[in-house]
């Protein structure tokens, strides 16, 4: 045996690992392939009525929503990232991480809160009327929130952190001397921002923008509450109210084109992201602002946090408190849905982390020669994050129902064993969230030197034993982070849960959805508050890991 051969032998995964990884990749792609088969298999004649009645309006609404949210998140995200990176003002130390807080707010919860907050006879409009001296909503009211501009407002102020995050990371690593060079060439601070800092950040902005738009496309609650009939809402109603699976599959297919465009935007951005950070240089130092300008900037940077997090969070706290005080505690139904939510999130976390471990381990363990196939599997397995929950659910329905009826005939079981036990829902969530543990575990594995694995093998351990005794303990932080992210996202998940949940099975999210849809507003605030509190955990983790403390370097640099 040659040295090379032995080395490769050490690193190769056993066929079982590779096979499992392959099956996971196929499983992730299955719903998408099913959709194409459903949409085109029934013949194009079927598309006629859809094109005539449903698609144009829903597609137009979705396009306007995407365009509006895109502009809003770019302006807020980039603007705040630049304010915080290049300026020093009162509150900067808090705002630089607080600007991430809206990430803890699912879009449907913010829409739920603002419908009540901005109601014509609600607190905000009442206060405005009181200040202006009107006494009836007939004399003065704000434009109705239930409209496309209203939905753009709500989604934009919740989703801007995706752009803020990538833009801030980019601005922090841009070398200061580029801005200084622009200044010596006659540009003002403003001009240098628009001609140098902004163009250099473009790839990073594209990544953040595409993630925010994928969330917009995935959203069902906010659009539904605000009465905007988007493609996602159309998929839901076509299947749930009209029971037209082929029609729902066709709309879902149309959405996949948007998904492909957004994923292309994201990948393209990531490829060009190395742009400015090639050299390690002194970063831009924040400029201290004084007086009115400083307070104006503080207010401007605080506004998105107030609108996207503080106001709705305070509203939820107040409503929950009121309810608990007067309403005599929590109903049985809400307790049951909390239990369901935790059970679902636990199941999804276990399944996703296990699958993520298999995919990451198999893609790493294959030698350089086999790298392409393994990497392809890993990439395919992590595509689920981009597929909207409704689209995923429609794609999973057909294979799941076929599987269920096969199981039912084979074992003589009643009804739908997989659907009824919520297993299809767990699979759908696992597909959607698989990218998080795979990414984390791959990064963790990359930090473990190959010599450690070789030592273990030379001491007589098998591949599996090495994974169990060496890598798993070392990977514990990466796995824990991935598990936390998946757990919280599964708790918040709404669109796929709505379509795939077993009969009479409510999670906190669907409980809230039902109340908002009925307009009853009873215990929805308590459910929402529980989701937001859980959602704060990963955001705090993110704030600590990604942004870190702003490094305070001395203002003058010395000649090396």
């Amino acid at each position: 045996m040659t040295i090379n051969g032995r080395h490769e032998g050490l690193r190769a995964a056993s066929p079982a690992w590779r096979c499992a990884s392959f099956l996971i990749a196929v499983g992730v792609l299955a719903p998408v392939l099913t959709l194409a088969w459903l949409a085109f298999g029934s013949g194009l004649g079927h598309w006629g009525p859809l094109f005539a009645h449903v698609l144009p309006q829903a597609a137009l609404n979705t396009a306007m929503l995407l365009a509006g949210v895109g502009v809003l998140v770019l302006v807020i995200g980039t603007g705040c990232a630049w304010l915080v990176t290049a300026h020093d003002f009162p509150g900067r130390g808090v705002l630089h991480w607080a600007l991430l807080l809206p990430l803890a707010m699912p879009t449907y919860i913010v829409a739920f809160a603002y419908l009540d907050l901005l109601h014509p006879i609600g607190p905000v409009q009442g206060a405005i009327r009181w200040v202006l001296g009107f006494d009836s909503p007939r004399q003065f009211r704000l434009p109705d929130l239930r409209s496309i501009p209203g939905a753009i407002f709500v989604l934009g102020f919740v989703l801007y952190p995706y752009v803020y995050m990538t833009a801030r990371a980019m601005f922090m690593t841009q070398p200061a001397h580029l801005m200084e060079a622009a200044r010596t060439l006659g540009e003002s601070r403003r001009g240098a921002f628009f001609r140098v800092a902004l163009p250099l950040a473009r790839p990073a902005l594209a990544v953040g923008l595409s993630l925010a738009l994928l969330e917009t496309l995935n959203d069902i609650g906010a659009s539904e509450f605000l009465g905007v009939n988007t493609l996602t809402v159309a998929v839901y109603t076509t299947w749930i109210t009209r029971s037209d699976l082929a029609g729902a599959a066709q709309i879902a297919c149309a959405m996949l084109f948007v998904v492909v465009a957004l994923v292309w935007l994201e990948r393209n951005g990531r490829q060009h992201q190395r742009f400015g950070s090639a050299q390690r240089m002194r970063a831009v130092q924040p400029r201290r602002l004084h007086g009115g300008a400083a307070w104006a900037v503080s207010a401007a940077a605080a506004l998105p946090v107030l609108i996207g997090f503080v106001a709705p969070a305070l509203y939820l706290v107040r409503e929950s408190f009121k309810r608990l005080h007067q309403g005599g505690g929590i109903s049985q139904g809400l307790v049951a849905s909390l239990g369901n939510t935790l059970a679902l999130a636990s199941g999804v976390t276990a399944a996703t982390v296990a699958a993520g471990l298999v995919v990451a381990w198999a893609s790493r363990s294959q030698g350089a020669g086999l790298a392409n196939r393994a990497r392809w599997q890993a990439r395919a397995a992590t595509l689920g994050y981009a597929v909207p929950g409704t689209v995923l659910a429609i794609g999973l329905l057909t294979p799941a129902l076929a599987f269920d009826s096969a199981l039912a005939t084979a074992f003589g079981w009643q009804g739908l064993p997989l659907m009824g036990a919520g297993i299809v829902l767990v699979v759908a969530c696992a597909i959607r969230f698989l990218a998080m543990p795979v990414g984390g575990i791959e990064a963790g594995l990359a930090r473990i030197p190959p010599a450690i694995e070789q030592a273990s093998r030379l001491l007589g351990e098998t591949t599996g034993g090495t994974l169990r005794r060496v890598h798993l303990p070392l990977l514990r932080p990466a796995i824990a982070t991935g598990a936390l992210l998946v757990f919280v996202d599964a708790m918040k998940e709404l669109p796929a849960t709505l379509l795939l949940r077993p009969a009479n099975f409510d999670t906190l999210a669907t409980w809230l959805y039902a109340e908002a849809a009925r307009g009853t507003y009873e215990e929805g605030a308590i459910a929402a508050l529980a989701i937001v509190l859980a959602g704060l955990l990963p955001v705090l983790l993110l704030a600590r890991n990604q942004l870190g403390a702003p490094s305070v370097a001395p203002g003058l640099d010395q000649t090396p």
Partner: protein
Amino acid sequence: MSSPLHLDAIQLAYDTPRGPHTVVDGFSLALDAGEIGCLFGPSGCGKTTVLRAIAGFEPVRAGTVRLGDVLLSSAQKHLPPEQRHVGMMFQEYALFPHLSAAKNVAFGLRRLDRTAQQSRVAEMLALVGLDDAGERYPHELSGGQQQRVALARALAPSPALLLLDEPFSNLDGGTRERLAAEVRGILKQAGQTAILVTHNEAEAHAMADRIGVMHGGRITHWLDAAA
């Protein structure tokens, strides 16, 4: 359009948690129009800080900086960098990675119309011997070529004063001295007032008319550069 430069007893400091830390105190320097001066000294002697103060990136705590008849900096006044007509070549070149070489050179020429811009860019690229590299991007250029683009970019708006911060430190020894002599030729041909900062003595002698040796934030003595 080059102008004489006068630094009169300037003081420079940066803020630390324990109060201001003075780097340069009572520093004076005078340079005639078209003359090339050099600040020469070891790391941390404050020479780069002086350069950054002339460019307008650091405030002056005391004393004055004048370029021709214009007061650039004093304890009360601070003209922003973009209004100083001071060009700078950075140690790391600081070329804009998203712009081609020609666009980099044209960056400071916004006040000119398109045709005037183009002819000025062509003239500058020819001056530094890069006539046919205008369409290339910074990462496609060698270190020496990047350096020439940075020089062309700094000279293009005809600054009243050019600052060079360790301009050759990223190049190897042989290229370094050849380029230093070549850059001196270009600056002299343009009649450009300039200040060079370096810790390399050969480079100082190859470029400058006058060499001020710095120590502890002051010029301790002048060397004859005619050697």
